[in-house]
């Protein structure tokens, strides 16, 4: 009685196994969680007790815009201590008012510092436009 030759099938299965083992990645993606407010018109969230950080568009040749925290010009090095020194009420919300040409990296760094200083919410304020 002729026997079925299993060798090519096993070769094939081994090749598939190697492909899936190499192509699979189980590592999770690192990121910063952002919960969006409900849809509708933009809200005016600014209150006198909020922390307000204004960032100007970077000057040509520079990568960081000038930052003003509650009317005081501040550098990135001192931002964490300023956030940590804020009152509990101020830590409820940080409002970032930035120009459109500020680099994403600067915003992520500020979000990182705010999270480390236990600021609960971050709001982005932009100039309202008719349509985007």
């Amino acid at each position, binding site marked *: 009685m002729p026997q079925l030759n299993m060798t090519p099938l096993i070769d094939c299965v081994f090749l598939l196994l190697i492909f899936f083992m190499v192509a699979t990645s189980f590592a999770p993606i*690192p990121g910063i969680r952002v919960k969006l407010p409900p849809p509708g018109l933009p809200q005016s969230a600014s209150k006198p007790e909020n922390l307000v950080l204004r960032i100007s568009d970077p000057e040509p040749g520079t990568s960081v815009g000038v930052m003003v925290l509650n009317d005081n010009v501040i550098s990135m090095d001192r931002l964490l201590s300023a956030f940590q020194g804020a009152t509990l009420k101020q830590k409820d919300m940080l409002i970032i008012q930035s120009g459109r040409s500020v680099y994403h990296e600067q915003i992520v760094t500020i979000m990182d510092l705010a999270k480390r200083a236990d600021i609960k919410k971050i709001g982005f304020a932009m100039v309202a436009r008719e349509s985007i």
Partner: protein
Amino acid sequence: MAPMIDCVFLLLIFFMVASQTRVPPRFPVELPDSLTRHAFPMKRFNLYIGREGLMSVDDNMMNGYDDLEIFLAKNKKNIETLIIKADRLALHGYVIDAMERAKRAGIEELAIGVKEGGGTGISVD
């Protein structure tokens, strides 16, 4: 031989079911670094934003924000968390516009993708 072949078949089935292959964008994206970070399971529907403002969801290029909004609204049911992977030198305006469109499309939770292997692994909830 038979037990080994059984074992290999089981491994093959495991990897076929569990695997999620990574779909890279068609343009380079260098993510910013951050010390605080959460871990998100690798899933489809990552929004890539290049430094020139190019956008793609996985490898589907988007021709503007209207296109993005329609795409996101169509796939809303399958998107638990939209991970925005913007280049560190992309303009903040592009990211905000994309977030606005995601909100309009009904997406409730976003994540800002940061560099893999960077930071110190501080997790914040």
